[in-house]
C-alpha cells in the first residue's frame, strides 16, 4: 500500500481546518509525472468517505483544445460557451454525487432564455438532467449549479470539494478561433469565468484543490514545473492566498513499496528484476520518477 506524504499533509490540514472560514485553496505542484493526479484522487477518495460533494474538473486544458463547438453566450456577448464540455461536467457530477444531492432543491429561478426557465424549488437533479438533455443551455446550467452549491455550502448543508487539474490553463490562449479568425483567450470562456468566481468567493465549508501541470504548455515549453512560472503573475495574484504543496518524486522507501506491489501483482516477470541488484538498476533507470518507473517496468 502506497501512501504519499503530500496526501497525508493535505488530509491533516483538512481535519484541522475551521470550516467556517472562507474557501481554502490548495495548490499541488511538482515535476511532470510526479504523481499529482494520484494524490488528488487519494484526497478525493478521503473526502468522499467523509461524504463531501465532489465537483471535479478532470483536465482543464480540454477547454483550451481545438474544438469547434463553441457558441456565443446569450447573457453576455463577449463570453463563449462550451456546450459539450459543460454537458460532460454535469453528467460526471451527477454520477458522483447522486446519493448526496437528492434532497436539495434550487432556491431561485434561473432564466435560460425567453421561453425556457427553471422555477424555484425544483430538485437539483432535475436541473442537472435538464442541462444534460438540452445541450444548448448546458453552460448556463453549470453556472446555476455552482451558485446553488455555494448557497448550500454557506447554509452548512454540504461540504464541497472542488478539484481542478491543470489550473494554469485558465490564463492561456485557447486553440480555438472565433469564426476561424480571432483567437480566443481562456478568460473569454464562461466555464472558466464561472470557476474563477467560485474560487474567489467567500463560501464556507468549501475547499479547492488545484494543480498546476506542465502538460498544459506546448511541447516546447515544458521545462518549468514551479507554480509561479506556470501560472504567471495573473494566476498567482488571483489564487493567493493559497497553500502550495509539493509533490516530490519517490523516496527510496516509496520506490521499494511500489516495486513490491508490482511483483505482487505479477507485473514484473523477469527473475533478475526481483533481485536487489535488479531493483537498484531499475531505481537508477527511472530516476525516482513515478511515471518512468512504470515505463521501465513495462517490458519486464
Amino acid at each position, binding site marked *: 500500500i502506497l501512501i504519499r506524504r503530500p496526501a497525508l499533509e493535505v488530509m491533516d*490540514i483538512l481535519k484541522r481546518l475551521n470550516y467556517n472560514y472562507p474557501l481554502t485553496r490548495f495548490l499541488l505542484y511538482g515535476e511532470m509525472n510526479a504523481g499529482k493526479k494520484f494524490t488528488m484522487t487519494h484526497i478525493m477518495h478521503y473526502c468522499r468517505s467523509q461524504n463531501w460533494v465532489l465537483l471535479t474538473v478532470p483536465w482543464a486544458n480540454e477547454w483550451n483544445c481545438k474544438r469547434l463547438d463553441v457558441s456565443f453566450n446569450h447573457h453576455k456577448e463577449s463570453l463563449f460557451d462550451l456546450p459539450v464540455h459543460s454537458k460532460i461536467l454535469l453528467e460526471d457530477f451527477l454520477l458522483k454525487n447522486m446519493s448526496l444531492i437528492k434532497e436539495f432543491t434550487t432556491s431561485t429561478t434561473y432564466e435560460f432564455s425567453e421561453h425556457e426557465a427553471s422555477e424555484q424549488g425544483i430538485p437539483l437533479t432535475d436541473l442537472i438532467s435538464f442541462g444534460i438533455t438540452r445541450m444548448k443551455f448546458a453552460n448556463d446550467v453549470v453556472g446555476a449549479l455552482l451558485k446553488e452549491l455555494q448557497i448550500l455550502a454557506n447554509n452548512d448543508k454540504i461540504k464541497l470539494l472542488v478539484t481542478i487539474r491543470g489550473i494554469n490553463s485558465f490564463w492561456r490562449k485557447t486553440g480555438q478561433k472565433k469564426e476561424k479568425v480571432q483567437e480566443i483567450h481562456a478568460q473569454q470562456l464562461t466555464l472558466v469565468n464561472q470557476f474563477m468566481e467560485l474560487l474567489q468567493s467567500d463560501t464556507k465549508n468549501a475547499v479547492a484543490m488545484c494543480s498546476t501541470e506542465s502538460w498544459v504548455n506546448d511541447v516546447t515549453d515544458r521545462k518549468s514545473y514551479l507554480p*509561479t512560472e506556470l501560472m504567471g503573475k495573473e494566476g498567482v495574484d488571483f489564487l493567493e*492566498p493559497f497553500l502550495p504543496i*509539493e509533490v516530490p518524486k519517490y523516496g527510496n522507501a516509496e520506490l521499494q513499496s511500489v516495486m513490491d506491489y508490482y511483483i505482487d501483482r505479477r507485473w514484473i516477470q523477469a527473475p533478475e528484476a526481483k533481485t536487489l541488484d535488479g531493483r537498484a538498476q531499475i531505481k537508477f533507470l527511472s530516476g525516482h520518477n513515478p511515471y518512468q518507473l512504470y515505463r521501465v517496468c513495462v517490458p519486464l
Partner: protein
Amino acid sequence: MASRRLVQLSNEHWIVLNIKRSTVHHLQRCCVHSRIKEDLEDENFKVLNILRDKDVKRFKWEKPPDVRTLSRADCMKTDMNWTSVWPTKAPFRWGSVPLPIRQGYRKKEYKLSAGKYGNAELVKIPNFLHLTPPHIKTHCQAIKKFCTEFPSELKNREIRKANFPLEVITSDYVTCGTSIRDPRSREVTVNVDLSVLKFDEHSVTKIKKLAGDKMDEKAMTLQLKSDRCPVRKQNFDFNVYTLTALYYESQEKEDWEDEMEESDWVKYQWDKTQSKKKILKLKHRIQQINSGEKTDLASSVSKSDPSVSVVDTEDDIQSYKSAFSNLKDEGDSRETLNAYKQSVLKLLKL
C-alpha cells in the same frame, strides 16, 4: 630537328640528305652551293651539312651564377644583432631574412606553398621585422631616462579603484601600411565606480532603470561605451556627459513617477497591491467568525472597510507580507514556497 632523306641531285647522283638544324645559329649557316661543289669533286657519299659546321666555335651562353646559393641570410650567425640587420620599416627582402617562410596558393595539392625567393606575396603583406622584441627593448632603453617609476602603492587593485573611480579604456591599432589611421581606435570605454557618488533608494532604482544593461547593481559600476563620434576625444566627452546626465536625472524626482504601475516595480511592494486588500478582508472575516458574530454574506459586504478594524501590523499579516514579497521577488523555489505555506497556515490559524 634532324631528318634523313634520299635526294636526287642535278647530275643524277643520289645522296643521303642529313639535315641538322640549329635554332640559334642563323649566322653560322654555310653557303650551300660551295659545299656541294666541293663534295662532288671527291665523288664520295658525304653527309651534307647545310647549316651547321662543327668546327666553328660557337658562342656558349654562360649561365649566370645562382643567386640562391649564397645570400646574406645564409651567411648570418645565429647570435647576430637583428636590430642592425633590419633597423627601420622596410619591404620584405628575401635575402636578408634567415627564416624558411612559405607564402602563396598552389593549385595542385601536393605542392608546397611557394618559397621566399622572389615571392611577391611576401612583399605585399605588411611585415613587422622592424618591431621585434630586441627592437622594442632598445626603444624602451632609449626612452627610459625620461620616465619616472610607477608608484608601488598603485600596484594594488583595490587602492587603485578607491583612488581612481573613473577608468578610461582606449585601443590603438597598429598596421604596416601607408597610413597609420584605423577607424576602430575612436571607441572609448569609461568604467565608473558608483560607490563614490551619493545615492538614496529612489535614485538607485531610477538610475538602474535609466542605465539598463550598462549598470551592474551588485558591484555598483557603470560601463559606458561610445564610438558614435568620429574622434576619440569627442567620444570620451560624450561618455562623461552621459554620466553626468544619468547622475543628475536620478537625483531628481518627477511628479509622474508616482504613477508607476505594478509591472514596473523593481521590488514587489505588497502595501500597494490588491493582495493586501484581499488578505485584510480575509483576516477581518476570520476575526468576525472567531468572535462569534452572526454575519450573513450580504451584511458583511456592506460593512465598513475592513482595514479599519484590522491592524495591518499584526504578526501573521507581516509574515505573510514578507513571504509573499519574497516569492514574487526571488521566484519560486522550495524554500520560498515552504515559507509562504507556513505564513498562510498561520493566517488561517492552523
